[in-house]
């Protein structure tokens, strides 16, 4: 197995094929690989199958741009900055996208099972809820559980009367995405990955995925990260491509580095209540700039600096909740 390659964002994202199953590191509007999201849209990927522990601004954007064929997750919204993912909501309401809803533990378990080479994991979560209503097996209803798609199993889930305590329990099948894209604070030149702050479900989604793209604020000498192995998450042998892209998580937040750009996300949410609104927004912020560096220039240093975290706190001491 070769060591990971340090490449451009264009090259890394260029490896992803139409129809691939994707997942992402991060949590809602935190530490999302936004630079890669913009590039996926610029490269006009189609029919992607997203399987995410939870969604956020990033997947609503991919959905709005028409990149996504199937969305599977527990949630999509913008936290405080937008009540729900309006592109996803619109496409679901119009029947323009296939989707499966899961409880948080369900979908976490699906990727955790994938990361451990297991066919399933059990949970007691959400029994009696509509995510497990057989009528809501949307991929099944669409005839996609016929074995033709290697990412879609024959069962959405199974109930199991287990033999140890005779309880009924939900078994959810493993998910193994083709790609996971994760934005992190630091990666070593040989691919050792360090995440500062909460780890969310990054370890699980990275290990579940066949290929990994790590986008880092900074590429640092391996030796530096290896002084403290217990602070690192992943060895380079699990990483295919490394991209160095400062601010690459904007407009989502990055622990210890910068806040989410709430105003930016809020404007996105408001603009994208219609497809036309999304298209105009994308024209300005995605297609209207050559690449992520030009996007950063368009945002400007003043705006970006205003998002910077205070190192003593891990967040900005000047930005208050609800203030802009």
């Amino acid at each position, binding site marked *: 197995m070769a060591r990971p390659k340090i490449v451009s964002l264009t090259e890394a994202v260029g490896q992803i094929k139409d129809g691939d199953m994707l997942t992402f590191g991060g949590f809602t509007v*935190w530490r999302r690989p936004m630079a890669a999201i913009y590039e996926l849209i610029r490269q006009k990927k189609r029919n992607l199958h997203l399987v995410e522990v939870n969604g956020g601004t990033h997947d609503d954007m991919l959905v709005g741009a028409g990149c996504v064929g199937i969305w599977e997750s*527990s949630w999509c919204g913008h936290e405080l900055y937008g009540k729900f993912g309006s592109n996803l909501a619109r496409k679901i309401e119009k029947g323009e996208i296939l989707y499966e809803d899961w409880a*948080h533990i369900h979908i976490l378990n699906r990727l955790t099972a994938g990361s451990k080479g297991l066919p399933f994991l059990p949970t007691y*979560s959400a029994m009696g*809820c509509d995510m497990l209503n057989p009528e809501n097996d949307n991929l099944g209803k669409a005839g996609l559980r016929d074995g033709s798609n290697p990412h879609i199993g024959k069962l959405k889930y199974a109930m199991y009367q287990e033999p140890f305590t005779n309880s009924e329990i939900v078994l959810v099948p493993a998910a193994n995405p083709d790609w996971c894209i994760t934005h992190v604070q630091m990666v070593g030149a040989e691919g050792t990955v360090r995440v500062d702050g909460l780890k969310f479900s990054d370890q699980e989604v990275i290990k579940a995925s066949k290929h990994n793209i790590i986008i880092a604020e900074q590429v640092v000498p391996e030796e530096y990260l290896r002084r403290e192995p217990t602070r690192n998450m992943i060895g380079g042998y699990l990483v295919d491509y490394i991209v160095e892209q400062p601010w690459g998580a904007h407009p989502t937040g990055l622990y210890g580095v910068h806040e989410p750009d709430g105003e930016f996300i809020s404007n996105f949410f408001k603009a994208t209540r219609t497809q036309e609104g999304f298209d105009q927004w994308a024209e300005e912020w995605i297609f209207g700039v050559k690449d992520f560096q030009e996007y950063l220039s368009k945002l400007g240093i003043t705006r970006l600096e205003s998002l910077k975290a205070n190192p003593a706190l891990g967040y900005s001491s000047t930005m208050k909740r609800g203030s802009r």
Partner: protein
Amino acid sequence: MESKKGHSKPGEFKPIDLLACAAAREVKDGEIVFAGTGLPMLAIMVAQHTQAPTAVCIYESGSIDGRPIDLPTSVADARCSYQAAVGDGLTDVFGQLQSGKVDLAYLGGAEVDLYGNVNCTFMGGPTGKRLTGSGGNSDIHSLAKRSVLIMPQFGQKRRFVERVSYITSPGWKIPHWPDKEWVPKQEVYGSAFNGGPAAVISDMGVYRFDAKGEMYLDTVHPGFTPEECRENCSFDLNNF
């Protein structure tokens, strides 16, 4: 009713303040509390600053027992992790939830019904208006010992319904799949049954659940009458 909106002046209070305080009172000192974003987060912080200083707050992002000095914007906000005991991830905290370690969960929702079932996925069912989906709402309601739902009610009658149009999170009576028979939560969860909804706290009053798992009006906030509560509820609040 404009005076019931906006920020309060010192010495005054608005229904939203009452809501947060009423919610905060549900926490007993030393309890392990799992809180969601928004008003639930505010309520637990009020509780920790009043009668429950050693209550431990767990967020589904992986942050445990933070001591925030600024109000967080979401459960993954670095503000939640300030002076936290542990900052790990979802596998940790959902595992603890499932193992029955969570005494009380604070959540919101778009719709609640007679049995405390919660909807935050679709208003009007799968052909209706799409919302965020479950996130951890379902997991937390499924597995916590008690859960407290914080819901705006005044002028939002459609949020209090006889049957939610989509069950995101289980209340006291739920369908058993695949046969669809409605049975008590205990029957579906068996040995994994830890509890269920303890209260729904709105800006008008506090609702609890009787032995049949049906919602009743327990107390009415100052400035409202039981009749007004009934008027702002789509089902027949006949138990009070």
